[in-house]
């Protein structure tokens, strides 16, 4: 590494996908959901209430641009224009700053709705581990929220907390999960909750002769224990689903599953799109209602 150049260990993979088997031109209702988070932004386009395409990227310096860029990814790939989309809903931390949105809905409701689609209607407990917050949500069979909590005060249990350890260990964030299992024995969790103190504790462990992988394992375990304590406030049910960036960290996910004694529902889609997907689905329902009332009126 040359001097002055800092490697970005925290950087995660951006992704863009469209369902080639669907033809948006033939659809009656096209809706979009834009989730502008503190760290990542996603755009999801739904055609007739089915997932059509998504784009997930890092949030830039301002929310309106991030929203525009996220959607632009899907538009480019599909040949769609903004005018082709009937209704847009903004969600996430920057939801009121989505310039072309018709409505804003909180990410809590959107994540529940998105998880209900991605994981099926049996899903009752949702854990969203975002870049700068952590949410535990309980919902009914329709994906309607019945109990929730969100923690955006403290970095422990968030993606930011994971980025800090990636930087400290100088290991790319995507490798943390697999590496955490490459240990001679499972260590005890890092005892400090606070990321600042956990960081000094991690350094202490390295000094005491722990391998990097073992320190990562101790940190992943601490993160798992922490989010499980949040889910327990909401009540755990067997069918649970993890959304957000940390769903991709197998080191945390497997440990959460072990603590809860159950496995998280799987999805073929990017776990980070749940919020935007929920928003697009809300848009679809809203259009259906409006359409229905319009027909009634006529």
């Amino acid at each position: 590494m040359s001097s002055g150049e800092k490697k970005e260990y925290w950087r995660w993979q951006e992704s863009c996908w469209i369902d080639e088997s669907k033809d948006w031109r033939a659809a009656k209702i096209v809706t979009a959901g834009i989730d502008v988070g503190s760290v990542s932004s996603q755009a999801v386009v739904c055609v007739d209430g089915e997932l059509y395409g998504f784009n997930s990227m890092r949030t830039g310096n301002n929310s309106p641009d991030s929203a525009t860029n996220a959607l632009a990814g899907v538009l480019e790939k599909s040949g769609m224009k903004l005018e082709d989309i009937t209704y847009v809903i903004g969600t996430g931390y920057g939801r009121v700053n989505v310039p072309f949105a018709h409505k804003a809905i909180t990410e809590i409701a959107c994540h529940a709705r998105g998880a209900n689609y991605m994981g099926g209607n049996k899903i009752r407990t949702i854990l969203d581990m975002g870049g700068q917050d952590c949410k535990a949500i309980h919902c009914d069979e329709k994906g309607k929220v019945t109990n929730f909590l969100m923690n955006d005060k403290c970095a422990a249990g968030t993606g930011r907390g994971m980025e800090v350890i990636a930087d400290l260990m100088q290991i790319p964030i995507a490798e943390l999960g697999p590496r955490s299992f490459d240990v001679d024995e499972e260590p005890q969790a890092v005892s400090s909750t606070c990321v600042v103190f956990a960081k000094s504790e991690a350094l202490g462990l390295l000094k005491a002769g722990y391998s990097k992988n073992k320190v990562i394992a101790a940190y992943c375990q601490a993160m798992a224990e922490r989010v499980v304590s949040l889910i327990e406030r909401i009540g755990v049910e067997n069918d649970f689903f993890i959304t957000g960036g940390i769903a991709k960290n197998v080191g945390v996910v497997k440990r959460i599953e072990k603590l809860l004694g159950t496995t998280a529902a799987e999805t073929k889609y990017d776990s980070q799109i749940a919020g935007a997907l929920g928003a697009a689905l809300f848009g679809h329902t809203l259009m259906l209602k409006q359409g229905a009332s319009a027909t009634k009126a006529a």
Partner: protein
Amino acid sequence: MIANYGYKDGSGEYYISIDTDKCTSCSAGRACLTACPKEMFEIITDDYDDEVAAVKQSFRRSLAFDCSDCKPAGGYTSLPCSTACTPGAIKHSW
């Protein structure tokens, strides 16, 4: 819906939970709004179009500090907010 506002950090868990089902048809005349000396509550229209009480955003990350005046160390007997909320929708976790 039970809405939990607050956080957990290294020092403990601090949540004010609001049972919005008890809140939509408030029989206490929204007494929480004035009961809280810091005016931490507000009425919002939630995502399911219900008018319910919520803890204002600016307080959600600092409840341990903001509520400290109503919670003298050594235990408190009654909190102004949960006392005023006769339907029993407001609860503190700590």
